[in-house]
């Protein structure tokens, strides 16, 4: 954990970058954000899960781009000039980090949120997976869903999804 992170913690305030996705507002820890760029065409990865839009050249390194709408099974929407890619630095198990981009409809704001004002995400049962949620926050009567980036974009989770689809296709073959 970086020193400024601790400094922010000590005041019990964290900064979040908020963005819009299908008229809902989501937030990610600002310290995870590396940069924000406009949408540009990506190279499709063959046979990848549909929410992986492809890979992009970020100054010499190849980074995958995840479409959060598809990740959250929201209705698809065409990419416009307002569409942005938020480049995040994600921590894999241990200290390993990697860079990934998420596609969002638009970025909105940077908010200082008191940790005490972050509410735990309610349990939606099987309808909704709240593992990727850090919590919720109400700002000007709008609800902001704060995402846990490390869990959301963990490649092992992506693997899980693929193994499931793999086993499904194996099952198909058996039939």
């Amino acid at each position, binding site marked *: 954990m970086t020193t400024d992170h601790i400094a922010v913690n000590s005041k019990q305030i964290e900064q979040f970058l908020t963005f819009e996705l299908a008229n809902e507002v989501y937030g990610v820890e600002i310290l995870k954000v590396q940069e924000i760029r406009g949408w540009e*065409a*990506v*190279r*499709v*990865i*063959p*046979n*990848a899960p549909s929410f*992986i839009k*492809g*890979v*992009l*050249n970020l100054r*010499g*390194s*190849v*980074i*995958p781009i995840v479409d959060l709408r598809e990740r959250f099974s929201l209705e698809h929407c065409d990419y416009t000039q307002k569409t942005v890619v938020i480049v995040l630095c994600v921590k894999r198990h241990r200290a390993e980090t*990697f*860079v*990934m981009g998420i596609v969002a409809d638009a970025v909105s704001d940077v908010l200082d949120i008191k940790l005490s004002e972050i509410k735990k995400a309610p349990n939606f049962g099987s309808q909704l997976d709240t593992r990727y949620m850090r919590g919720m926050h109400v700002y000007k009567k709008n609800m902001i869903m704060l995402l846990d980036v490390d869990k959301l974009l963990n*490649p092992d989770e*992506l*693997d899980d999804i693929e193994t499931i689809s793999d086993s499904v296709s194996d099952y198909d073959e058996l039939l």
Partner: protein
Amino acid sequence: MSIDMSQFHQVFFEECFEGLEAMESGLLSLDIGDIDSEVINTIFRAAHSIKGGSGTFGFTVVAEYTHIMETLLDEMRDGRRPVTKQAVDVLLGSVDCLREMLTSIQNEEDVNMVSAAKHQAALEIELNGSAGNAPEAVKIDKVAPIAAPLKPEEITEIDEEQGWKIAFCPYLNLLKTGNDPVRLFRELNGLGEFTSNVNIQDIPPFDELDPEECNISWELKLVTEAKEAAIREIFSWVEDDCALEITPLSKPKKVKKPKITPTAPVVEVVTATPDVVESVAKKAAVVVESDPSKNTPKASSSIRVDTDKIDTLINMVGEVVITQSMLGLIGENFTMDKVGQLKRGLAQLERHTRDLQQSVMNIRMLPISFVFSRFPRLVHDISTQLHKKITLKLVGENTEVDKAVVELINDPLVHLIRNSLDHGIEMPAERIAAGKPEMGTIELKAYHRGGHIVIEIVDDGRGMDKAKLLAKAIEKGLVDEATIMSDKQILELIFMPGFSTAEKLTDISGRGVGMDVVRRNIQSLGGNIDIISELGKGSTIAIHLPLTLAILDGQSVAVGDETYIVPLVSIIESINITEKMLNKVAGKGETFKLRSEYLPIIRMREIFNVKSGAATKSNEGVIVVVEGQGALCGFLVDELLGQQQVVIKSLEANYRRVEGVSGATILGDGSVALILDVPGLVRLSVR
């Protein structure tokens, strides 16, 4: 086989001197009396590498000499021998002696055998002199007076220093009686300079551990003017609950500053896994201070480059700058009549940039033969020494690897090949009895696969006995008897520090230093190591290393809107498809006729699920005939785009492995193109 080894001497000497430096700084940072096992390990590894290297190059004098040092260090590492100043001095002396020897060899002079022999004798005295009582040195009553066999020239350095040596061996119930060793130590510390050495030999296995029992004992050193009675007084509370032995101390003058502070007594633990240390610390309520600054510094990632090459680079950069300023000048007041000039300038810039790129690449990329060609000699020498018959086969020597990889992969490979030679391949008689050819084979292969460089060491020897490995691991206390392990996990045991199944030590291998270092080195390169072994049939050790800066000649092909790169080496030819070439086997598997052969077709559009672009008719496009996994096969693509050199970027760095794709690259327009993994695709299509 004759290979001019002298071309590698320079590298060897540089490595040796680096190793000597590491040993020296390690020895100097050793605290007398308390042992930091990591430091000793570092010194030991350096000595081991020097020994290995000098063996490879036939400098037996150096190898023999280092072997003695290594034995000494090995005993220290295992805690069988206390680290005394005397031993450290002798070792330091021998580092100097080694340096002298190597310098003489480097300058092609005769080695000064007189001074070498003198140092060797000193080493042997040290080795034999106090080693006798070593194995159980931890038993307090058996600890030899630290400065036992002093040699005359060293006595001058020794000064009688007043103080006491206290062997403090609490009974199991010490803690139950409410006594706290920490309190005692704090009071001792008040009397003078205080150092402690903890002995955790008697700690039972974790499952039998009773946290209320005190299973550890201490060896304390107190430099003070206080009388024995004063010390006895401190221990008066625990007198009945411990065995106490107080002896006067004669100590080297240079006493290290004690690391004890009144509030946090420090216990340096000899050899123990961190969790044991932790449990000990908790149990005795002693704080084990871990000082991060004491961690061994990371090996610097420097590479050696000819100054000539750098000069060339500087020249080229100069040219580029000149061209750029020329172009800037043209651009300032541009008129159409300057177009010719501009074009010439751009052409010049292109040429310079290409040259520049090439020379930068030249610096980093080397064929793996740079490493491989050192091995025939090693195999020859060792097999003669062991009276074994072994041939070494080298495959894929021209595979290009990053220079950093070339340099760092050498030591691990030496270890692995030595292991194969020593433990893998059997004696000729044994081989014949087992129905194998008398001549053993070790194959060293290198190839690119799946975004990795794979180096394989394959031997047809006796393989590894998993039951024996497991038994050894249990005996050494590395695993618990109750643990159920898969075959793969058992094989992985050989990567644990201090693990060796060899019954006797040889100077070739068998100290159990090899494999953990091997794995550490390879992991530090971002790679991994796998073992496949079958008892009686042989072992295969595969090292996977990422291609960081590898470049490759590629053919770019278009499929829909996507661009893929096919490695040029795997392309046999490309042909335009015609209707009558296509055949279907049983209405499904498509084949085409190439001259007299029928080859399977892989439709890239289908296998990669490409939906974009105008759907081409099934009989339009280009077939790229490739070789993968030893078989020919045709990739059906929309069109060929062009050939170019591409820099391989790993997809795994930020994503993960993708089947059928060995990596990615960045095209001239800044977009990403995926590089096809030809063998992988052939496999994928068969499935």
